[in-house]
């Protein structure tokens, strides 16, 4: 697996853990891979650690956090954890790119958007001067912004949220990355705008045969965008597998609860809900992270469950659904 063969996945994460200075585990032993052209969703509620995973992959964790384990991207020999800042900077924006949640604040308010797009080309010496500006306009056109040449001269505050997110996507796709990381890219947008932006992302990665790591709390959005899904809770991946399979026949009780709670199809006043609330970071129980809210939990769950798999679907549960 460690040899650099053509079949090597675009992103490979192995035993990734992130801890604070006081020793609190925010992420524990994440292992997953995304192949070229594959679209993988990472779902979980607030505090599950999904945004932190994205930042760890990009090497953008805050200084006060420590990451251990392995993160490898195609086209770069070494582990990204422990890699020098200079080398990471060269990878960001080229091999791997990211789209953030808040389009309103993700762009520099004092710089014209065309310039901001062109910059991602000039930093990596893909184009210069007038050529970069032309490419930027072309990219703005590609993401469906009307009158791209004029829009390039606009400042961010002159654009709507949806338009700004298109600019961010144009920047992310500018250098044809092998891996695109999206952190809740449509959460701040209206439904009708969300639909178009999601289409843009899917088309963008498909055209480039890029790998996609798509983070969201919305199960319906994952089904719309992704082929495979990773379910996170309490800083751990508790289940993974093809989207249809995982949502239709979840094995982990958390996934099942999430699917049921998202459906909104029960009788009024009788929606199925997961009891209790998501603990704050560092307050998750030892052993199975979900056991304090799980109806099926037993004393066995105080021990960290093993990762089980059947076909493409995997889970970490002592009492998986449909096992007995």
């Amino acid at each position, binding site marked *: 697996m460690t040899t650099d063969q053509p079949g090597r996945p675009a992103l490979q994460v192995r035993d990734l853990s992130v801890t604070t200075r006081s020793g609190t585990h925010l992420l524990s032993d994440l292992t997953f891979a995304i192949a070229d052209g594959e679209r993988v969703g990472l779902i979980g*509620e607030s505090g599950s650690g999904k945004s932190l995973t994205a930042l760890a992959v990009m090497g953008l964790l805050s200084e006060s956090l420590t990451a251990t384990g392995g993160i490898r991207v195609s086209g770069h020999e070494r582990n990204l954890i422990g890699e020098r800042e200079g080398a990471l900077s060269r990878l960001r924006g080229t091999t791997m790119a990211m789209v953030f949640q808040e389009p309103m604040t993700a762009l520099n308010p004092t710089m014209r958007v065309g310039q901001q797009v062109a910059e991602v080309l000039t930093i990596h010496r893909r184009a210069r001067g007038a050529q970069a500006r032309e490419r930027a306009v072309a990219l703005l056109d590609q993401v469906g912004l009307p009158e791209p040449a004029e829009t390039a001269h606009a400042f961010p505050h002159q654009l709507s949220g949806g338009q700004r997110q298109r600019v961010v996507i144009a920047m992310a796709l500018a250098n044809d990355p092998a891996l695109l990381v999206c952190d809740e890219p449509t959460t701040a947008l209206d*439904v009708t705008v969300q639909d178009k932006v999601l289409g843009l992302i899917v088309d963008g990665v498909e055209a480039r045969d890029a790998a996609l790591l798509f983070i969201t709390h*919305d199960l*319906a959005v994952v089904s719309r965008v992704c082929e495979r899904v990773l379910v996170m809770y309490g800083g751990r991946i508790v289940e993974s597998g093809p989207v*249809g399979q995982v*949502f239709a026949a979840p094995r982990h009780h958390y996934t099942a609860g999430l*699917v049921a709670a998202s459906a*909104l199809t029960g009788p009024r006043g009788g*929606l199925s*809900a997961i009891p209790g609330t998501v603990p704050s970071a560092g307050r998750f129980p030892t052993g199975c992270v979900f056991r304090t809210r799980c109806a099926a939990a037993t004393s066995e769950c105080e021990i960290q469950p093993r990762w089980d798999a059947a076909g493409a679907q995997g889970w970490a549960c002592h009492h998986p659904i449909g096992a007995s």
Partner: protein
Amino acid sequence: MGAPIIEVDRVSRVYHRARRSLTRPAPVVQALREVSLTVEAGERLGIVGESGSGKSTLLRHIAGLEQPTSGTIRFDGKDISGLSGRRLGFLRDRLQLVFQDPMGSLDPRMTVAQIVAEPLHARRVRDAAARVEEVLAAVGLPAEAAGRYPHQFSGGQRQRISIARALTVSPDVLLADEPVSALDVSVRAQVLNLISTLVDARDLTLVFVSHDLSVIRHLCDRVVVMRAGQIVEDGPTEQVWRDPQHDYTRRLIAAIPAMPADTHRSEI
């Protein structure tokens, strides 16, 4: 069902922005344009729309928190659109609100007991302790929650506090402005269940604002769709969901990503 309890009659609201150009006049924002709407007692009405559609603005007008530029709003036959805060006492007794942001809508410097009792204190009712305990129990919070502060609770629990506050005066009408939008999926269902149960048990009229049509479809019998300050569609929720008449409603429904377990869409 029965008599109309809220009547909104051709209400418009214009906001003036600060002038920014020599040549152009100060920009105005038409937040509501000639909106008319009637809510009957005991009804569960949903208002759906995207950001800037005017749905929250409409709700605040109904609650007497803002005054329309033109048009009238009647509550139980009484015109409230010209009344100042002081003369809206009768409305406060009968209509209460739940807000979107479960943290922002609770004063961080007040205990839960003070927050929940505020509608009574504002009425100069002195002894509210028994009532506070009663409504906290009704929303599923333990009695000892009364002495604690909002930041000691999770998002879902805070929304329960917010609902408890709305119930202290035993209102007839409950207005809810995106009460579950800021909540996690697993908690959202708990709060929706609570609202639904309380509305049934206390014979409340519910006006529920949301950007999420599927939440309204679950909770409400009737829905109005708003866009750019206007109501573009009004009808029974299931009928609107299955057979939208307005072009915008159609686009709105088409844009909602389908849940994997959502069997409904595949029926169409």
